[in-house]
């Protein structure tokens, strides 16, 4: 059990660093950066008006949205979608405590199962938020989103489990996410078989990451040319702000987990030096974010059936082959 000092420590971690406050700062920074990249690719300047170089524009957008009246039509659900979205945001931010960004990371044997379960809350909350007000376009988007998740999530989970199993078998890391990240660099050089497993899982994990985050070419649930704004069509004011907040935190957490498992975690920093580990992990995360944004702004979009077929045809074999290699290697 936790004593009083540890409890205070956990509350500080949850609400300040690397929890709520730090995540808000990170959301502002990543959104500003993403919009600048999109602007550069589309021959625009991106945000310029609010703050130095437009850095505070995402914060201004957030404040504008949450200050609006919460308007719900007479057929819509009133409180529950807001509560569900807030809890889902809380779930993703709580997971920041199991990353090397935390100065006192939290871990447990087999915690990866719980982490995967908690990650799943966010798409469900997004779907619930979209369906909370009747709109045919939101309904179509949720159908597409669920088809995408069914086609991506199991294989993505298999890809995540590959380094966890390898580390658990060779380094006694108790199938824990944080503990695996401390040996993630060594998983690539254990043996030729482990290298093959890690390479396959890294490819599968990246494709799964793009699909789960609805990055092009897998953004058909929010295809604005067909479905207005997909999942976000009927949302406005504080509900849209919470949906965006949830999506943006997901955009931070999922690549962070990818960095922890496939890109060596805090390596070359010693994991016991938390601030150096945090800086290294953030730098690696920034590289992954840049690649994701470049892909997002330069790829066309799949039709739903094309996207789903691609995932079944390539992501599943790659990820499950990686998992089998990890089990028998």
């Amino acid at each position, binding site marked *: 059990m936790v004593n009083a000092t540890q409890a205070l420590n956990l509350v500080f971690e949850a609400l300040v660093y690397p929890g*709520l406050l730090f995540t808000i700062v990170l959301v502002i920074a990543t959104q500003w950066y993403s919009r600048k990249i999109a602007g550069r690719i589309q021959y625009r300047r991106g945000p310029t008006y609010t703050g130095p170089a437009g850095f505070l524009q995402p914060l201004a957008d957030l404040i504008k949205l949450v200050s609006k009246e919460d308007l719900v039509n007479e057929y819509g659900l009133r409180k529950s979608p807001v509560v569900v979205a*807030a809890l889902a945001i809380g779930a993703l931010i709580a997971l920041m405590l199991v990353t090397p960004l935390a100065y006192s*990371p939290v871990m447990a044997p087999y915690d990866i199962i719980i982490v995967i379960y908690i990650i799943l809350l966010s798409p469900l909350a997004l779907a619930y938020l979209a369906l909370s007000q009747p709109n045919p376009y939101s309904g179509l988007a949720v*159908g597409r989103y669920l088809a995408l998740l069914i086609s991506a999530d199991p294989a993505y989970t298999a890809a995540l489990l590959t380094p966890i199993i390898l580390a658990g078998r060779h380094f006694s890391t108790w199938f824990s996410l944080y503990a695996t990240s401390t040996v993630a660099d060594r998983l690539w050089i254990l043996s030729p078989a482990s290298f093959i497993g890690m390479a396959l899982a890294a490819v599968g994990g990246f494709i799964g990451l793009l699909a789960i985050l609805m990055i092009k070419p897998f953004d058909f649930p929010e295809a604005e040319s067909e479905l207005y704004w997909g999942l976000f069509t009927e949302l406005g004011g504080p509900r849209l702000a919470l949906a965006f907040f949830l999506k943006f935190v997901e955009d931070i957490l999922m690549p962070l987990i990818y960095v922890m498992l496939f890109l060596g975690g805090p390596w070359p920093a010693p994991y016991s030096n938390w601030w150096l580990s945090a800086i290294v992990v953030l730098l690696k995360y920034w590289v992954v974010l840049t690649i994701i944004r470049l892909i997002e702004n330069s790829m066309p979009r799949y039709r739903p059936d094309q996207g789903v077929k691609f995932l079944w045809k390539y992501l599943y074999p790659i990820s499950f082959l990686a998992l089998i290699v990890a089990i028998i290697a």
Partner: protein
Amino acid sequence: MAFGMIFDPYEFVALMSGLIALIGLSVYVVFYELFQEAAGRKVAEEGTPIRYYPVMGGWDADISETPAIGRLVVDILQRAWKNASKVLSRGAKAYMRDWYVYAYIVLLALVVAALMVR
């Protein structure tokens, strides 16, 4: 591994649930209730009759229809796997109505049960 806080899985679940509730409540209070109280709810309620009605394309839509989500998912998967879904539906039509298929399934279940209780 001595770095960080190590819990057993049950404590970890309880801890994460508590943290999720704490952060979720903070997000709800700060980003919803606080801003709504400070600004959102102060917007005057101008009682136009269509204020809370669904509006489609600028027109008041009396009841907005939502498509069947499950059917959509099945439709997308069927389009993705055209041949497989054809074979499956034909096979289901051709074989699954015959009594001996069910007899085979029962027989198989008996064999599995026999092996398990052996």
